[in-house]
């Protein structure tokens, strides 16, 4: 029954995305800082996408995070940006913290939009610099996707030495929201600053922060895998069709082996993402370590695929009109917005003894 709903949902998603996510529309979003496809978001809300994975007790459909992953993969394939992962992660954190059930319900219904404000300035890790004290936040976050259009932010901050995640209503006092130009304007990025902004503690402690970042990383990994899949497919298609020196470029080993490497990276990244998702669904203790591998594996796969997709396309690949640069931009923004690779590598190596027992 759940499977049927999922299949139907995914079929609908593919149809909608194929119809709406045209190159022209995607390119228009890249033109202006802080862009957001509100019309498409409206349709996604109508189809219930924000609700599918959110728990029933929070007002969602409760189909589980496993329902969101393939949907994000479809979005990733088409470089479509919708605040689904951020909404799910926020709602899940709220449920865990037992706070703001109303906001979770609004996230499920699509009335509310969440941004994950986890990134730090001048730091590729996630140790928060924003300070929580006396019920309010003070300090600045690095740019966060969807912050330009979000109603709420899940913000990492510290109370004394204890890091935690805090919920902020972005209409509250003391919120400054600077829309910023990025490599990938379609993700509605903005930098948030808080000046005695009222905030609610959601979950406390470094482990809780990391676990929720790991959930975000796992979901993003599926977007990355979708993107890498698409890069591989258009590269292979182009390599079969484009001729130089009397042969399809796909007959030259330089291209064949490049694409074989792209395939390997993709499948390794996919394997990591699948394993992290499974561990999360089963509530296993190895989840964070597997989330690290998903973050790193899917990130490497998409970065590599996007970079070499342009290279495979040659001159055409460097034009605005062609598709590859959408992925070149998206691969990097997904790789950066919840902490850079060196941070996740540290996390993985520090915990690798745990992983070894898997």
């Amino acid at each position: 029954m759940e499977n049927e709903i999922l299949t139907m949902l995914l079929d609908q998603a593919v149809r909608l995305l194929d119809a709406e996510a045209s190159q022209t529309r995607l390119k228009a979003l890249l033109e202006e800082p802080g862009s957001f496809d509100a019309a498409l978001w409206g349709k996604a809300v109508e189809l219930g996408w924000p609700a599918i994975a959110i728990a029933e007790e929070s007002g969602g459909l409760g189909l589980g995070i496993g329902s969101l992953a393939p949907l994000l993969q479809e979005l990733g394939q088409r470089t479509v940006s919708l605040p689904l992962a951020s909404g799910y992660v926020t709602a899940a954190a709220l449920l865990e913290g037992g706070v703001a059930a109303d906001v979770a319900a609004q996230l499920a219904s699509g009335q509310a939009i969440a941004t994950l404000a986890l990134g730090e300035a001048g730091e590729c890790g996630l140790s928060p610099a924003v300070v929580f004290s006396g019920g309010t936040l003070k300090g600045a976050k690095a740019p966060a996707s969807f912050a330009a259009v979000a109603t709420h932010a899940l913000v990492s901050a510290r109370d004394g030495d204890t890091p935690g995640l805090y919920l902020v209503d972005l209409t509250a006092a003391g919120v400054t929201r600077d829309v910023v130009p990025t490599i990938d304007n379609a993700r509605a990025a903005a930098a948030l600053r808080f000046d005695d902004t009222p905030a609610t503690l959601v979950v406390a402690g470094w482990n809780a922060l990391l676990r929720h970042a790991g959930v975000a990383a796992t979901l993003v990994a599926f977007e990355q895998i979708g993107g890498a899949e698409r890069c591989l497919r258009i590269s292979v298609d182009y390599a079969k069709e484009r001729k130089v020196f009397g042969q399809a470029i796909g007959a030259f080993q330089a291209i064949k082996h490049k694409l074989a490497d792209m395939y390997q990276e993709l499948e390794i990244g996919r394997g990591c993402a699948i394993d992290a998702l499974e561990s999360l669904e089963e509530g296993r203790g190895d989840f964070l370590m597997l989330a690290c591998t998903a973050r790193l594996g899917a990130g490497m796969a998409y970065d590599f695929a996007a970079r070499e997709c342009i290279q495979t396309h040659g001159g055409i690949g460097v034009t605005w009109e062609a598709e590859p640069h959408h992925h070149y931009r998206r691969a990097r923004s997904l790789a950066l917005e919840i902490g850079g690779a060196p941070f996740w590598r540290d996390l993985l190596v520090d915990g690798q003894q745990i992983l070894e027992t898997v």
Partner: protein
Amino acid sequence: MNDMSTQANESLGDYVARARAWLDAMEPRFGHEARKGLTVDQDLALAREYQRLKSEAGYACITLPRALGGGGGSEIQKILFGQEEFKHDFPTTYFTVSQGMPIPMLLRYADKEIGQRLAPPAIRGETIWCQLFSEPSAGSDLAAVRTRATRDGDGWRIDGQKLWTTWAQYADYAIAVVRTDPTVPKHAGLTFFWLDMKSPGITVKPVRKLAGESEINEVFFDNVYVPDSQRMGDVGAGFRVAIETLMIERYSVADDACGGPTLNEFAKLAANSRINGRAAIDDGQVRRALAEAIVERQGLRSIHRRALSAIAEGKEPGPEGSIRKLRLARRRQAMGELAMDLMGAEGMLLEPEGTSTLDHVWSWMDVPGARIAGGTDEILRNTIAEKVLGLPQDYRPDKKVPFNQIG
């Protein structure tokens, strides 16, 4: 009942549990400690004994019939048993080729009577078969074999040379692909036989490898007689039969350190090595290398687990299995090199008693063959590009040219 491999309605989980128990029981007699200090001949004798017990317990040639000494089991059971057996250091290497490909092919292509007579002792480990495929000029390009067989009455006379023949020095029998017609294109002129390795005219000469072991051999043929009754498949069908042989091991199992030290061993080394007085494990370049290796291992484990599920459901595993060896052999080489870097001048030491699975330097020394045997890095990338991605085949100027007219 403990020695029966296949039990009705046994789950795969139970199967594995039973295999583990059996293997654990074998450990004292055949494990690492028991084998320490043995000569190759002593080790081979021990291996034959282990093989006999495997056959009795139904763990030898698991997919072949029980009546012949096999296990009467499934492909997935074979893979799962192999995975468990890998965790021990049992003397299995002498029989890997023998039981993996020649015996199943013999049962498919040779006279029934021959198969019934020769397969059981091979399965019990009493005899060893080798595979006479590669030659000096035919490695990656198997269809380029030059070893000639010419008609002689009811049989054939073979002249030429094979190379890279694993365990030929201990082999009693062999399967071989040879050229019976040089006037047709290369793939069309080959024929497949089985041979008695004691036939007059066969000389076996072990090849010394760079790191010293010698499981590989040159095999010379000087007017060796083979009756036509030992032909397997039609005259001229040898290439197809050879490819079928290579496809039997559709899904090969390799541990995820590819025969080198595990990543845990590397982490231990890094914890105990210093870079300018600081623990190497705290250094970002070491962490990056280790993190990337862990990611790769996790991805490959996931691919492997899903392939096993597919096989368990009776599906054919895809060619994505090629990824595993391609990645892990290169990774083992890179990690070996980094391990040596961390050891500094001590990284030159090659302990005589060391083994590739435990010693980083031995692993590095012995790894180059892993990037070549069973498909070079380059061939495997081509396989992925062509078979998985559907990219065009390389230019093959010799494909339709009669073999004796190829320049």
